[in-house]
């Protein structure tokens, strides 16, 4: 078989193998000692708070064209009292839009990841639970997906929709995660098939469905969460790339970091570059935060690092 693919799969499979053991407590302890994990945790925590409570934190209504009459093609008012970060190209309060954008960005990132997890888990779960030809066919499909450059895959899918929308972006971005989660889950299920707790349940006469849902799936959750954290960071970045290529959500009133960055870097770099810098910095920091958390989780769960 394809050794290149096998190599791409390796870390995923390694992660899968780590499941099914009780590592929780030790992992958390180890993470609390790591500055990387703490930094990531703080960034992610702050981002989540801002995103979830965005409507309460916005100093102004992000949709009102407050300074609309001052806008000129070559002039956008900068920071001033009442508008600490200035306004955007319609005179809307930029700070409020950045905060609102945190929520939209989180929604796109999280939904894309969830859709990816769901489809991936269904494929991987089916393959792992049934084995045989189901496994062969599904894994062949996953290999094809895995073999395509992720951004190109997202671009292809987004370009195929007649009408771009927030949903097409979410769906396109989610496809990046599907093959990864599918392999992850399959590996994890396979490694558990002969594990003691599954054998015990089986000998007690527990039905196959119940074993899969009550025992095998919950035990695979750890590695899925790790991978989901990493995928979230990629999702945010790829959504921004789609926006830049004009394949993003076309709703011009939506405050989403990728859209804001895409538009500002096309149009306002010379007029008011902050309009590109702020969302860019926000994206970088948040993507970094999720990566840090994901990486340190992965490291913490890696049995090799156990002492």
């Amino acid at each position, binding site marked *: 078989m394809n050794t290149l693919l096998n190599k791409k799969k390796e870390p995923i499979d390694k992660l899968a193998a780590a499941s099914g053991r009780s590592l929780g407590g030790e992992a958390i302890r180890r993470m609390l000692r790591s500055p990387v994990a703490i930094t990531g945790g703080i960034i992610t925590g702050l981002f989540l708070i801002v995103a979830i409570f965005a409507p309460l934190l916005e100093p102004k209504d992000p949709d009102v*064209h407050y300074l*609309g*009459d001052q*806008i*000129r*093609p*070559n002039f956008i008012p900068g920071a001033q009292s009442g508008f600490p970060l200035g306004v955007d*190209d*319609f005179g809307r309060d930029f700070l409020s839009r950045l905060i609102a954008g945190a929520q939209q960005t989180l929604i796109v990132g999280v939904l894309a990841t969830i859709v990816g997890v769901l489809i991936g888990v269904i494929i991987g779960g089916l393959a792992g639970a049934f084995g045989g030809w189901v496994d062969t066919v599904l894994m062949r499909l996953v290999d094809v997906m895995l073999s395509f450059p992720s951004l190109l895959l997202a671009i292809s899918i987004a370009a195929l929709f*007649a*009408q*771009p929308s927030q949903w097409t972006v979410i769906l396109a971005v989610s496809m990046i995660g599907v093959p990864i989660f599918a392999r992850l889950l399959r590996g994890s299920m396979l490694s558990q098939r002969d594990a003691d707790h599954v054998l015990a349940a089986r000998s007690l006469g527990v039905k196959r469905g119940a074993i899969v849902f009550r025992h095998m799936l919950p035990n695979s959750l750890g590695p899925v969460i790790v991978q989901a954290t990493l995928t979230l960071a990629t999702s945010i970045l790829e959504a921004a790339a789609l926006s830049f290529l*004009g394949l993003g959500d*076309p*709703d*011009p*009133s939506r405050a989403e970091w990728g859209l804001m960055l895409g538009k500002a870097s*096309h*149009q*306002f*770099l*010379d*007029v008011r570059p902050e309009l590109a810098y702020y969302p860019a910095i926000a994206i970088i920091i948040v993507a970094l935060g999720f990566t840090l958390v994901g990486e340190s989780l992965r490291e913490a769960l890696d049995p090799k690092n156990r002492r």
Partner: protein
Amino acid sequence: MQQLRLTRTRRVALIGLAGALAVSLSACAESKREEGAGGGTGGTMIFGAAGNPKMFDPAFNDEGETFRITRQIYDTLIQNKPGTADLEPSLAEKWESSNEGKTWTFTLKSGVKFSDGTPMDATAVCFNFNRWYNMKGAAAQSQMIYYGDVFEGFAKNEGDASGDPVYKSCEAKDPATAVLNLNKAKGAFPAAFTLPSFSIQSPTALKQFNADTVTQSGDSFTYSEYANKHPVGTGPFKFESWDQAKGEITLVRNDNSPSPAKLDKLIFKVIPDENARKQALKAGDINGYDYPSPADYGLLRNDGEQVLIRPSFNVLYLGINQANNPKLKDVKVRQALAYGINREQFVKSKLAEGSEVATEFVPKVISGYTDDVTKYPYDVNKAKQLLQEAGATGLTLKFYYPTEVSRPYMPNPADTFTAISEDLKKIGVNIEAHAEPWNGGYKDDVQKAGKQDLHLLGWTGDYNDAGNFVGTFFGRKKAEFGFDNPQLFSALGAADASPAGDAHAKAYQEVNKQIMDYLPAIPIAYPTPAIVVGPKVKGLVASPLTDERFNTVTVS
């Protein structure tokens, strides 16, 4: 190693190194690199174009990037005076109509030759008219958008095309006199003779390189060798090469031209990204480019570049479809929408310098424009009051706007939508937004299916005739606007039939007043695109019709 250099034309034909070596021996005579202003007088100009041309036979074309180039290669019978939409002689020194506009007699400039040395005379002119009229094949006919618009039908219509031909015959009375006979008079003449699609091309070259062959290739077309490699006309430049890899179209001076160029060489460099065009000009890589972003005008000027603003020949409008929502049949509601849109602020904040608020559906430079129409200045209270009177408070409208498109009349549809819908919300109208890709069915939904209540669209004029604007929009019952106003239709028909000149203009002024009272749609703005050239470029005149001819240009 100088011998290894080849001219680009030959290079295109090369497949391998072996071929290159073989040809280089015969080509070493012409193999010299141009350094600045070479042997000629005006130097070399490199111009950043915004898109790919399709090919170089304007008869089969209907978009600006191709015309930009063919305008340098060919001449038309009549042309637009530089910087205006007024007519002036080109290949025809004189033209006159008789027989109630059904006969047009052109007196041609004598002694004009095509760049291949063959004579440009009445026979050649009639050859061109006959070529268009007798064009065979559905593939070829379906591409001739302008011919279909103006002359309505072919000798034998193919595909789904229908329409009775306006063209009847063309006689070459003597080498300097061509007489064109039509089946009916049209208000579009004589202005329509300036259309680049009606450029006069060399009959010899057309025949030699099978210009009429248009074949289907997958979902697109393959054009003839003529259209791709051997276009021949009387324009100031002649075609040298088209380098796909670099995106460069190279033209050289045509010494046979009646309007010879000062430049030795004119290169069009295709740079689709506006920011990249700006970077290229800043770096001195190109000498000018089209469609600078309005945000950059100031910066460009500070750098010493010349930003030339074209007089507007565009109109952007907010379409209203009366068919789906009965409230929109009430003129008060339409007036309320007009009063409720802050067009002044939109034009100032979002459109380029030189753009103006539109008061009617024809721009100012068109004959037929009048200042004496009902105007709808921004007035929120009046708008709310009108809605109340009409019993249309809490109105919800489906607002369609296109994505993935930028046009001279509609530089940024999403921004336009945002500005207008925000205004409409303020007068209590609820907006249901529908964005659709331009090439993904927007026109179908808006112009054919009429799914919308409101929509954004506009028009760039082709020639100086008000009918080209208002006649196109409101001349008949259309799904786009969903109204039936026989009075307006007949007024437009009468204006189109009125003879060219003052009477024509007068008739259209009356129609424009009528339109602005009935308000079938809301004119928003006369946007205007600019063209920018470097400090060393002289003699380029910005044209309202984007009809810039580079024959007067020099680069020092």
